[in-house]
């Protein structure tokens, strides 16, 4: 029994340790973003904001680049999500029908894309050949379909009772009618799951933008953030005067903390609402079908 207490203690300690390790940096960044540059640089911030100020946030909301990035990301996410959901459902429904001739062939066509891909350059050449460089399409089209999402949707469609289909047939409703009038109205949960998976993916990724966009009025938020948070690191050494350096570093650090908060808050605000859909999606996906 004594080892059992120890074991239980270990599990609890493990759990709390990680909860704190994960939560603390998030709280720290949040507090630092509201503190004065001086407090940040001199290391006075530990847990709560010191000498609270909104300076950094004012700077961010007056920065045209960040605002353009926000707007672009909203457009890409909305448009890309709609395209993803439509393509996924259109592919998943026929694949879920038992009497669909060619089901095996089309399924393998899809599975093969999970195993093997043409790679960066061949894909780039196709996008370029289609004239999509520096357009919205380069962001919303190339990653619109994920085999994983299709399988989740197909599993869901298969789980609908077959009697529905028989009833449609008796009522003389065609396959199209069955899909649009019977199946789709029943599919809100799966549409939500796929839309959320795609939306979070589109909002958070920067790879397609890095490769296909060079026009900075088209940059999504993540590229703007990269310029500020990661590439912005370099210019500090150019300042000679130490005091000026400290102030400059302080302000730029403060800005970075605030940018991190502004960029994460929209997703983290929705996260408690969408978490259960994510969990549900993962569950459906893990059932083999």
């Amino acid at each position, binding site marked *: 029994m004594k080892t059992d207490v120890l074991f239980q203690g270990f599990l609890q300690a493990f759990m709390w340790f990680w909860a704190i390790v994960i939560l603390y940096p998030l709280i720290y960044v949040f507090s630092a973003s509201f503190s004065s540059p001086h407090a940040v640089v001199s290391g006075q911030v530990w847990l709560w904001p010191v000498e609270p100020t909104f300076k950094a946030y004012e700077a961010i909301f007056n920065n045209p680049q960040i605002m353009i990035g926000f707007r672009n990301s909203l457009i890409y996410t909305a448009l890309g999500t709609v395209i993803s959901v439509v393509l996924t459902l259109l592919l998943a429904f026929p694949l879920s029908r038992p009497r669909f001739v060619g089901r095996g062939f089309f399924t393998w066509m899809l599975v093969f894309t999970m195993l093997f891909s*043409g790679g960066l350059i061949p894909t780039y050449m196709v996008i370029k050949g289609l004239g999509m460089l520096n357009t919205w399409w380069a962001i919303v089209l190339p990653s619109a*379909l994920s085999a994983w999402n299709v399988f989740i949707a197909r599993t869901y469609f298969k789980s609908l009772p077959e009697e529905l289909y028989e009833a449609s047939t008796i009522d003389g409703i065609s396959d199209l009618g069955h899909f649009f009038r019977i199946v789709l109205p029943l599919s809100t949960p799966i549409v939500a799951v796929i839309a959320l998976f795609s939306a979070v993916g589109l909002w958070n990724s920067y790879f397609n933008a890095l490769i296909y966009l060079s026009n900075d009025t088209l940059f999504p938020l993540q590229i703007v953030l990269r310029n500020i948070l990661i590439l912005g690191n370099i210019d500090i050494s150019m300042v000679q005067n130490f005091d000026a350096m400290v102030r400059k570093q302080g302000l730029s650090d403060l800005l970075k903390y605030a940018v991190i908060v502004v960029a994460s808050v929209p997703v983290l605000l929705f996260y408690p609402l969408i978490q259960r859909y994510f969990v549900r999606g993962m569950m459906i996906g893990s059932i083999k079908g």
Partner: protein
Amino acid sequence: MVNNTLSGTRWKLVKRHWQLYLLIALPILWLIIFCYVPMYGVQLAFKKYSISKGIFESPWIGFRYFEILFTTPSGLMVITNTLILSFYSLIAGFPLPIILAIALNETRNRLVRKSIQMITYAPYFISTVVLVGLMFQVLDPRLGIFNRIFELLGGKPINFMGDPNLFSSVYVWSGIWQGMGYSAVIYLAALAAVSPELQEAARIDGCTRFQRIWHVDLPGILPTIITLLVLNFGFVMSVGFEKVYLMQNPLNLQSSEIIATYVYKVGLINADFAFSTAIGLFNSVVNVILLLTANQIARRTSDSGLW
């Protein structure tokens, strides 16, 4: 004759369900354009590409690029770095979500369980750019909170982002920080499905908590564990581009250049399309082989492969 009637019924089915083909046409067109046309372009890996001639007309040069990849120091370096990152991630990162899931599953207090699950799951939704930006801030040698705590405990500040020897550790542990709660969700669901009768029987037989977890819970989630292990092995050579590229700087490049970033630099920065395609192809082929092999092994040992 039999064959004839069979194909006859198939044809009838096709005709009766022609509308399904209408539905599937658009996504199949997408697959062809964005997946299969690039696969056709992979022949570039065996050609001496010239822009004026195009992919099709450029002359073949066989396996020349693959020889270069395997004989130059930079080629071998990126392969080694990729393998180090993925095996380190796998070994360090695989068991932790399982332990977290078991710990959460053993926590009877609902509020505590929900809160900790929420907290550990949250970083998954932070974008890679923000994550790496956060790492730069938190791990900064002078101002970062991590080093300040470290100094308080009597240590010397460490330049985490600039030391090539630390690169893999920073990459892997930040990955665990971000993904542990997310990965634990699957195990939690598997644990919830472990038969309550078995649990009850173990309790009546006087099993300790540890014995119950070891003999009932773990075997119950073993198929899930093996399936995920297989999946992870299959993707050993596909370390993602986004995070590594953001973490790269001239100081740590010797250990942070991996296949994905090398493909990008050779192809789009140096505009050596053919060589870049060859490196990518090498990576894809290894991935296919790994995934197929791993799946076979899983099917043999636990009857729980991916397909």
